[in-house]
């Protein structure tokens, strides 16, 4: 068994034991019953990219453990004036105990972790990774399924631009699930199958959905398309999750979405609000899992 992770940069560096430990700890966490285990610890939330859900989630998680937080946005004076990530990180290092970081460039947290010595928690970097989301998705699935082993988890939509899809695939693969990616060529290159063991591509949505235990829908990230042409009508016709399509999945299948969700695009209102949808549960679980992440990385470390 590996030691407790020092930073959380990506799921790839965790083994299944470490993953299960964090998930087990998350089950004991509840923001409605705050703890003081991280009292006196200072956590910087360094956000180079806008985020409501993840930032709020980490902030509440940190405070629910008694830590104090400071939010730093990319619009912060020094960053806007052109300060490098290295210098921002070094400055923060002398005043905080850990950095939770969101950055539009893939690999930025990996770079920062090489440059400074305090723990870095990746809260999403470019198209690369979003490990806390991967953990909370696994946590949510485990609230409904006994284990991930052998589950058919279908992820549909804009996989190319999705750090969630990558982190999820690594995590689900490590816990023994079958990961099926589904989407059009431009949003899902064939190279995706090499991401982790057990990842496959099924282009036809109906075929992909057959017998699925979990359906993970992704938003088309219009802001990252960079000239790629997506015909919206065509996309909806081929990849929108409708009530009738959902019937192809197992009866007890759950529908997930990392948000933000665009109703009418990747799924209909009907599906978004149906009983099988666990989208809102994901949000609450996000806080618990992030409490567990912060506790794991910062707890007992002085």
């Amino acid at each position: 068994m590996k030691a407790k992770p020092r930073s959380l940069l990506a799921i790839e560096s965790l083994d299944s034991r470490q993953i299960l430990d964090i998930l087990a700890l998350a089950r004991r966490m509840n923001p409605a019953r705050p703890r003081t285990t991280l009292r006196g610890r200072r956590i910087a939330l360094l956000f180079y990219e806008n985020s409501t859900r993840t930032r709020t989630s980490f902030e509440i998680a940190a405070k629910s453990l008694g830590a104090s937080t400071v939010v730093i946005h990319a619009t912060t004076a020094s960053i806007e004036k052109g300060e490098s990530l290295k210098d921002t990180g070094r400055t923060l290092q002398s005043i905080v105990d850990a950095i939770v970081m969101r950055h539009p460039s893939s690999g930025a947290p990996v770079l920062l972790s090489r440059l400074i010595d305090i723990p870095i928690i990746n809260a999403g970097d470019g198209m690369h990774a979003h490990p806390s989301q991967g953990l909370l998705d696994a946590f949510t699935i485990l609230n409904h399924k006994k284990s991930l082993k052998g589950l058919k988890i279908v992820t549909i939509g804009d996989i190319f631009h999705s750090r969630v899809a990558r982190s999820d695939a690594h995590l689900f693969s490590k816990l023994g699930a079958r990961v099926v990616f589904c989407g059009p060529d431009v949003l899902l290159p064939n190279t995706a199958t090499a991401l982790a063991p057990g990842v496959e591509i099924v282009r036809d949505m109906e075929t992909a959905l057959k017998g699925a235990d979990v359906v993970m829908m992704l938003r088309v990230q219009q802001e990252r398309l960079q000239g790629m042409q997506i015909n919206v009508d065509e996309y909806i016709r081929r990849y929108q999750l409708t009530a009738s399509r959902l019937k192809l999945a197992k009866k007890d299948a759950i529908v997930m979405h990392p948000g933000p969700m665009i109703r009418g695009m990747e799924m209909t209102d009907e599906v978004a609000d149906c009983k099988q949808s666990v989208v809102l549960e994901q949000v609450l679980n996000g806080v618990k899992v992030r409490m567990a992440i912060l506790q794991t990385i910062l707890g007992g470390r002085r």
Partner: protein
Amino acid sequence: MSTLLLYGGHLIDPAAGVDAPADLVLKDGKVVEVAAPGKTKTVADEKLNLKGLIVAPGFIDLHVHLREPGQTHKESIATGTAAAAAGGFTSVCAMPNTRPVNDSPAVTRWMQDAERGAVVNVFPIAAATLGSQGEKLSDYQALRQAGAVALSDDGKPILDDHIMREALALAAKVGLTVIQHAEDTKISGTHPMNEGVTSFALGLRGQPTASEWQMVERDVRLASQEGGRLHVAHVSTGKSLEMVRLGRASKVAVTAEVAPHHFLFTEEACADYDTRYKMNPPLRSKADREAILRGIADGTVDAIATDHAPHALYEKEIEFDKAAFGITGLEVAVAASLTALVHEKLITLKRLVEMLSTNPAKIVGLKGRGTLAVGSVADVTIFDPKKRWIYDVEKTRSRAKNCPYGGMTFKGKVRATIVGGKVVFSEL
């Protein structure tokens, strides 16, 4: 000037058909005598014992960024050529993406001025179009007279078919080679690495190989129509070499160079977002690397060139997608080639000398260089093909340290570099 005797070494001069022990006498910047060991007649006042070493016509790097004028925080002509000397290069061809862009006889002359403090020969490659904007040709005749040895918009490929056609035609008339950085930027998007399994996993956008080979295909086609000499810079894909082969089969005057990093590394080296492995063209797949090695072995590749691209630390120690493209390589290219090509039995020492000296001299038409026949310029590279050493990038003569070779062990080391009869680097 003194007379220098080089004795005891093994001379490899492919242009002169020599691969045997021989002594040489250098005088007044020229080779004045080549003779069997101990048989020289000229009286020398200085002697160098080169026992166990290879003596070769000075190595010529066709692709170097010296960054001067304008970007001396990265490199200068003095520091870049000092690195070249330590790496065994007696001549470097300097790319024109300086500030200002070298598209004028004035800049071309300025770069060759003795005041720049060059340690080895600097042969400017002038911009093929004004400002390397790809719109209007520069004055090839005047640039040639000022000392430019080739034309290129390196880093900014000439995309417009019509302009490339004009460039090839005019260069042919003037007698200069057009060097193309083959990259269709509309396809590549100048993304930070190769498109493939690794780029997907890293969440980085990738350059497909087609952005390179389709441009080579086009350039070969235009060269076949316009005549003239086309040289493809830093080939990184197997398919580009296919295009070169096809061109040659139909008698197009096309040559190709590869950079050591493309035969040493693959895209997987980027897996940790290490910007020391970020360059353009990017490191490619294993299959492409193998195709490059085949091209070196079968003669498709004419030259090894470094694409020495120095940058300041602050331009590299940043986010992978924002970091500058390029790595330094002057000090290790010869050692890396000996290690990965000669000692791996892919090519002979003679073929290595061809790729580092004989052929580059021909490609840019450097008269009296690329050979050590009597009467030629006394540019000599002396190396020990077997010496093992570890490259310490902290001690580099270059101003920049953006180099993945630091800490690597090589077999084969340059021991002395002689430019115009003068020893400019020696570890003898």
